[in-house]
Every structure is written in C-alpha cells, then in structure tokens.
C-alpha cells in the first residue's frame, strides 16, 4: 500500500522479504538453528518458522550474549534474515551484523522502529528496508 516508516539506522544495509513478526523477544542461542534458519525456541511464538530470507521483527534479543555468534554463523551459512527490525538499538544484533560486514562484506540491515510503528507490522507483509532506515510496507500476501 506504499506506507513508509522512518526508523533509526542501527546498522545500514538494504534488504527485502516477507515479514516475520513477534512481540516476544528472542534469544538466538538455543532459539535459532543456523543450519536451517528455523526458530527453535519452543517457548517462542515463532517456534517452527523459518526466518532465513525473511524480515525478522522482534522487539529485542533476550538472554545469552552468544546470540551474536549464532547470528554470525547464520550469515556465513546463508540462513540469516534479510533484515532485522527492533524497537531499540540492540547491541547483540548490531555486533553480529557489523562483524558480518567486516568478515564477509555482508551486513544485515538492522533498523529500530518506534513502538507505535513496530505494532503496525504484520507477519506476511512484504517489507523493504533501505540504507537510510526507511521501512516500506506492502500488502499482506
């Protein structure tokens, strides 16, 4: 529908894909299988969904700081999300993305949205994330 949200760039990059959205924070350690991109935290609402190539929206990361290492593995394995949307600057996601950029020249775009904008996201929407922190919303498919 062409709605555009302006977020805060945490790590710049471009990415697009179908949204995978949860209001629950996620730990990637024990929560994300980097071999497949599946969310495997069985207590998480997105459990069983594959986030590879999707625009993954979670408010922030929970728990272990090993989240960064798991997300870096996902970048190398080609199972990382196409972009990450959060409600605030998340240092663990940012670090994984920066190291992916330094090692592989492939940062994952990380953009922080206001809580109000984040609440408008829906799983299945086509989203496009731009390098200046815009999130362009398409229809739910």
């Amino acid at each position, binding site marked *: 529908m062409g709605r555009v949200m302006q977020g805060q*760039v*945490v*790590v710049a990059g471009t990415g697009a894909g179908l949204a995978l959205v949860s209001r629950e924070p996620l730990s990637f350690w*024990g929560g994300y299988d980097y071999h497949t991109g599946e969310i495997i935290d069985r207590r998480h609402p997105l459990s069983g969904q594959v986030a590879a190539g999707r625009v993954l929206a979670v408010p922030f990361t929970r728990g272990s700081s090993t989240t960064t290492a798991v997300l870096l*593995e996902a970048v190398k394995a080609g199972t990382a999300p196409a972009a990450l949307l959060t409600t605030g600057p998340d240092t*663990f996601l940012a*670090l994984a993305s920066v190291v992916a950029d330094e090692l592989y020249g492939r940062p994952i775009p990380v953009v922080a949205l206001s809580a109000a904008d984040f609440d408008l996201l829906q799983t299945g929407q086509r989203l496009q994330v731009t390098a200046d922190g815009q999130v362009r919303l398409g229809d739910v498919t």
Partner: protein
Amino acid sequence: MDTATDLPLRLTDRDRAVLMGAAGPAARLALRIICRLAPVYGAAELLDITAAHIDSTVYIGLAGLEFAERLASLGARVVVPTTLNVSGLDEHGWQGWAVPNEWANHAHRQMVAYQSMGTVPTWTCAPYQTEHKPVFGQQIAWGESNAIVFANSVIGARTARYPDLLDICCALTGRVPAAGLHLTEARAGQVLFQLDGVPAAIQRDDTFYAVLGHLLGQVAQDRIPVVTGLVVQPAEDQLKALGAAAASSGTVALFHLVGITPEAPTLDAAMQGHAPEQTVIVTLATLLAARQALTTADGAAVDMVVLGSPHFSLAEFQQLAPLLAGQARHPQVEFLVTSSRAMVYLAEKAGAISALRAFGGRVTVDTCILTSPMLPPHIRTLMTNSAKYAYYAPGLLNTRVTFGSLADCVASAVAGRVVRSEGVWAA
C-alpha cells in the same frame, strides 16, 4: 553514517593511530568494530580497561572459528591480562565422551587461535575464583553471563555484558564504549526484593541462593535487583550460584544485596537515592514456587547427575567429598563434575578427588555440558544443584531436569532414582 546516532564518537590520538594501523591489522580491525558499536551502546567516547575475560572461545560454528583464526593470522595480541572462558572441548578428555571428531577438530582450532593471542588459558567460566580475580572499581571487559554478574555484584568491578566477538576486540585494544555498567549512574538498583519471613535456616542453605537467583532473573529481567532482609552472610559459592541463576532466567548483570555486596552498604546507597521501579515481597511461598520451576522432569528417573555450573570450586569439591565417602553410584546413573584444570589440580592436592573417583564419578575440565556436545544420546534426564544447568539443559540438550541440593544429587546417584528431601524447605 551507518550508526544509531549522529553523535560523533570522540577518539583519542592513540585511537586514531590504531585505526590507521599503528598497532597492527588485528588491533585495527578490533577497534573499528568497537567504534561502529559504540553509538549503539549510547557511548560518545571510549574508556580504558585493565583486564578481559573472553567468552568467544566457545565453539559455535565455522564463522566464529574463521573470526578467531582471522585475528590470529593478523598477529593479534591482547594488551591487557586476559583470561579465557570455557571452550567447546575438554582438550585432553573429550575422547571419553560423545564429541564428534570433526567438531572436536574445529573446537580445538578455536582454542589454539585464542591461546595464540597472549591470553591466559584458564578455560573456566569462574575466572573470579582464580588468581586473576579483578578488584573493586576496576574497569574490565568480561564475557560469560555468570562471570559478569559476579564481577559487578560481588567484587564491585565494572563490566558491561560483553557478547561473543566483542570481548576479544576489547582485549586486543584495551578500549570499550564508555557506557552502561562502566558508569556509576547506571549501577543504581531498580527492582526491590524484600525478603519477608524467610527463616535463617533457609538462608543458610545452598539451594536458597540458586532459587532466589532464579526468581530475581525472572522478575527483574535486564534490570538491577536489590535484595533486603538477608540475615546471614552468604559464602562465595552461594553468591556464585545466585548470580548464575539470575543471569540465566533473566539477563541480570548486576545485583545488590543490602548489607552484603560492596556497593550496597545501605538500601539508599544501592538505589543511589532513587525509588524502586517495582517492589516485590518475597515470602517462603514465592521461593517454593521458584524452586519448583527449576524442575522440568516429572518422575523419579535420572540418567546423570551433573554438578559444576559455574565450574566447581575447591570449596565445593571439599563439600562434596565427605558426602560420597564409602558409597558408589548406581551403575545406571552417571555422575559428572565440570570444573577447571586449576581447581581439579588443587582439589587433588587437597585429597578431595579420590572420594569422587571411588564413587564412580567423572570430572570434565575446560568446558561443560552446555558448550560441548559430550553427552551420549541415552542421557535423557538430569539432576543438578545448578540453576544454570537446570535452566538451559531442557532447551539446549533436550533433556529433562530435576533440581535438588548437593546431598539430594548424591543420594539420587546412589539410589538410581530421584531422591529429593524437602530439608529446610519443609513448611
């Protein structure tokens, strides 16, 4: 500008020189990563640290190994005394377990890479129980959640929660973002827990600290808990258990125990004069519920008793030995203690290992069951006195867990089924 804020990062001349390569390519890469992260931390400048503890040693996969070997190949050398957390492998004992060969090979390469950087190969998640323990007020960059919370809370050293990959960058440069728990104002208590009618007999019991920690983490999440109403002086290993539990069920990086921990001589000091965001009355009933939540198994089956998360200390070995004397484990129950090379050496000298061997117990060093794929598939149910093992094992190892006291763990290993006395918890 590719960062979260438009505030320019204030760098020193030395920082600028390092970014130009004056300290070599590894330090240059490390400082570039720190500088890109600093605005995300909300830092406008960097500050010096004088020690580091590296959790990046844990083997997760080929990308983490590639990062370590890239740094090593660039000639990386730490510039502050730096201890190493657990690795993915008991370097000289993994063959006795179910670790796949290829995995062992990769994990070992990662150990070699980090050891090549001039670090101290402590291979332990309890570096605060070594001679490298930091001191009050010292600025440090530590990884490993239980070590971070112990350093901040029990010692009064200052570290943020450094994630894997960043901890080593800090060690290679001696610089960290000037933000978060490095700064006094970020260390004020936020959630007040008032113990109400919790008897001293319970407060003296080891399990109380694991249970209280689990509760603090659940409620406080990433905020700073403050506890009042403690009437006993906890032992170091009890504070270790409390912190590890709180850093598992939540992401607690600092707690204050009023009258006990160094930044909490009074409630007002712990809160830095602020009012609590939330106040929680902790009764015996609250604690009993938290204690129950640590058990996910529902029967009497137990395949393995596992102790030592965080790594078992000398004092814990000495506490365990007399409980084992003259007994042997049930043939169907494995009995494992995870610890460090240094602690096992000291415990051996102190005569606290022979009883464990005679009992049929085993010791693993350098790693633990959460970071090394060592358990054979027939191990489905665990028993432990560690809240951290109890919290993570169901998700990471797909095992069910019974939480109990040290004595319960020994009794269960002997009986071949879960034996759990209510002990001090009996109402």
